[in-house]
């Protein structure tokens, strides 16, 4: 009788708990707390936080290769490159390229902000001893693009996927705190007051042709970016065609939401105690922050360089919108601009580099994949 009770109790999780697991529960609970009470990217940090707890329940085997439920989500959703491209389909259907097409030169700012990605890559690799693949994954955090970070991490450094995703989403939530000091330090009051000259009106045909032409150009130049770019552009074509509203709506809403659920849980579940409790993790968070700051700074500086050659000066704050947290970075630009001049409305101009930044980050990830894989 006593033996039976003893063997029953041995099958409970309690005997197999490790301190690392309990620590990870705390990490998961902190993310859930931030998601609910501070509303930091709740759509992602909530499932990620819960996923962390689930992956650290002893004997539950949710991440057991070949068997566990969350392992299947991870393997067939993320490793098989299904979920991040589906998210991009939704983002494409939500994105209006109008502001970018109205001022095509702003595309340079979207590209410039990827400078932070590469600078961080070099810092991580040469100063802190991360290998090339890990460094690329850390650098891409500076692109402020969750699905791209997850996509790249799953290819190059799966053991760091959870941490990099959490860093990317946390800092995205903190964009309104991280960016303004950098932007103000690099610009003068006078520069922040610059009002933008009105962009030209964009014709419907241009918006229709953009996703098609962009697909050709980008995929031919950087084939490795194809999974994300192709889905992004097909979603955008749905949107601009105006003839498949049902598909547009499904991509923007239901499908995007479903994909988000299947993204968050397994991403959280990759964070087991062995992966997380390493000194390197601290550096990932520091470097991720550094990537955000550098991307903002490089974007603003390139905008100032562009001004040297332009008759119609652009407001250098727009450079910060190249960090592709859409539309957060654009909102931050607008707010900082209005602090200097109440009647300066930068929001729509900032959307140009902002959406260009999304594409820029995917291309940066494609280049890493091509060079490192």
């Amino acid at each position, binding site marked *: 009788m006593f033996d039976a009770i003893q063997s029953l109790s041995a099958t409970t999780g309690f005997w197999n708990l490790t301190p690392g697991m309990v620590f990870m529960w705390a990490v998961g609970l902190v993310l859930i707390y931030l998601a609910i009470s501070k509303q930091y990217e709740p759509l992602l940090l909530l499932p990620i936080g819960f996923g962390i707890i689930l992956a650290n329940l002893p004997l539950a085997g949710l991440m057991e290769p070949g068997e566990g439920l969350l392992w299947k989500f991870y393997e067939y959703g993320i490793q098989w490159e299904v979920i991040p491209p589906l998210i991009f389909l939704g983002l494409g259907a939500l994105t209006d390229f109008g502001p970018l097409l109205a001022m095509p030169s702003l595309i340079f700012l979207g590209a410039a902000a990827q400078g932070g990605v590469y600078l961080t890559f070099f810092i991580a690799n040469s100063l802190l001893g991360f290998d090339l693949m890990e460094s690329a994954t850390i650098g891409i955090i500076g692109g402020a693009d969750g699905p791209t970070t997850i996509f790249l991490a799953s290819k190059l450094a799966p053991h760091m996927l959870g941490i990099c995703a959490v860093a990317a989403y946390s800092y995205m939530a903190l964009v309104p705190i991280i960016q303004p000091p950098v932007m103000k330090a690099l610009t003068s009051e006078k520069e922040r007051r610059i009002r933008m000259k*009105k962009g030209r009106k964009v014709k419907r045909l241009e918006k229709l042709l953009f996703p098609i032409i962009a697909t050709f150009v980008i995929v031919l130049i950087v084939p490795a970016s194809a999974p994300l770019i192709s889905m992004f552009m097909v979603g955008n074509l749905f949107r601009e065609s105006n003839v498949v509203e049902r598909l547009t709506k499904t991509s923007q809403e239901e499908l995007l939401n479903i994909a988000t659920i299947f993204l968050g849980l397994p991403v959280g579940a990759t964070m087991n105690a062995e992966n997380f409790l390493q000194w390197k993790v601290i550096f990932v968070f520091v470097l991720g922050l550094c990537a955000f700051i550098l991307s903002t700074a490089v974007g603003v500086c390139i905008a100032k360089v562009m001004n040297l050659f332009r008759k119609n000066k652009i407001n250098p704050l727009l450079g910060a919108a190249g960090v592709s947290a859409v*539309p957060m970075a*654009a*909102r931050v630009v*607008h707010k900082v601009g*209005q602090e200097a001049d*109440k*009647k300066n*409305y930068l*929001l*729509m101009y900032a*959307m140009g580099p902002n959406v260009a930044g999304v594409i820029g980050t995917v291309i940066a990830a494609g280049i890493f994949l091509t060079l490192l894989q």
Partner: protein
Amino acid sequence: MSEELLAPMAGKIVQVNVKVGGSVKEDDEAMVIEAMKMKTPIYIPCDGSVVRINVNEGDDVEEDDVLLIVE
């Protein structure tokens, strides 16, 4: 002298703070427009009184639509 207040961007007017005939000062908050899920105040362009308001709360406007006229 009359001056038009143009919509600085496409969006939805969510709040109108002035009335026809009311006197206004430059930089008073005239309306609030919502675009990209962010509310932005729009300011009166010059001192004077409002002679016409073309929009109601809840209206969608395009960039450069005339929102109101100050005289």
